[in-house]
């Protein structure tokens, strides 16, 4: 698992472990979807066919469309796209899908950057959805119900997805503690200014103001 076939350089162990952990998270039942549904959705999202495949997965085509657009055309995702998904399958399912597809993009685009073959998706694990959904959250001029706070907490309607998302920051970018240091540098590796150039140009292309 995660041999990064095709990459010209070895990959840091912490980054590899993050990818292994993320794959394990994907394979397990989520708050609204079974493990097999999660894997089927991610497979379809990779192929830009989630809207077409959605009903066979047990989701509405509008949620499939959300997955496709988010993976392949993120700038096209707006309140209408998200609200249609939430109206059809519920807020928790929409947030679960946003989290899954976004986390998949972190792993897949890292592979793309390295020139490595994409990792096959994991085998799903059995069991019903967990039903773990936070209560009392509301939309705060957002597309989805969120707690007050910055972007790392926006998935916390479904706390297990939120935790998996936050766990990816350190190995892919910086931990929260490291982000407090303007002069942070990996040695050997990039310093913070170099990292921020990559992040800025990526965000500019994705038309993401935030």
């Amino acid at each position: 698992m995660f041999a990064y076939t095709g990459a010209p350089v070895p990959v840091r162990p912490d980054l590899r472990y993050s990818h292994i952990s993320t794959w394990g998270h994907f394979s397990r039942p989520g708050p609204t979807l079974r493990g097999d549904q999660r894997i089927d959705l991610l497979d379809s999202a990779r192929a830009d066919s989630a809207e077409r495949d959605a009903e066979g997965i047990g989701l509405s085509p509008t949620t499939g469309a959300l997955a496709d657009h988010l993976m392949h055309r993120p700038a096209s995702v707006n309140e209408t796209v998200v609200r249609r998904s939430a109206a059809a399958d519920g807020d928790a399912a929409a947030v679960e899908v946003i989290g899954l597809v976004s986390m998949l993009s972190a792993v897949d685009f890292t592979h793309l950057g390295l020139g490595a073959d994409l990792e096959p998706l994991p085998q799903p694990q059995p069991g019903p959805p967990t039903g773990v959904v936070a209560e009392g959250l509301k939309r705060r001029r957002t597309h989805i119900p969120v707690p007050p706070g910055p972007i790392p907490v926006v998935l916390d309607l479904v706390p297990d997805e939120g935790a998996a998302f936050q766990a990816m920051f350190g190995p892919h970018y910086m931990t929260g503690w490291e982000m407090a240091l303007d002069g942070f540098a990996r040695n050997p590796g990039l310093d913070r200014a170099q990292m921020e150039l990559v992040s800025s140009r990526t965000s500019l292309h994705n038309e993401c103001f935030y």
Partner: protein
Amino acid sequence: MLRASAASFSYPLDIEAVRDPSIPSGVPGGNLLLRFVDALLIDTEPVDHIRELIVNDLGPEALVDTASVFGNFSMMNRIAEGSGIPIAAAAVERERALVDTLGLADFVKH
């Protein structure tokens, strides 16, 4: 964060390089890193060549970091778009010069 980190390392950052990678960024290896993102997202040049240049100029660990930051912000951009996390109008005005320099006004969704 870019401006603060560049100042921390005393780099003569030209922020316009983020908008136009032909402008020297003032950050060591910075223009290579910008070209890497462009090669991946808009197919401006062969990515293998840019990877080789990054490894030769910045080291093999730098290529891993570059790819992982690219992956991280591919994720963060999607989280932002999916959640619709708002940008306060006051924050936009506070950074008006930067918004105008980088042409970000069209990306603001209030």
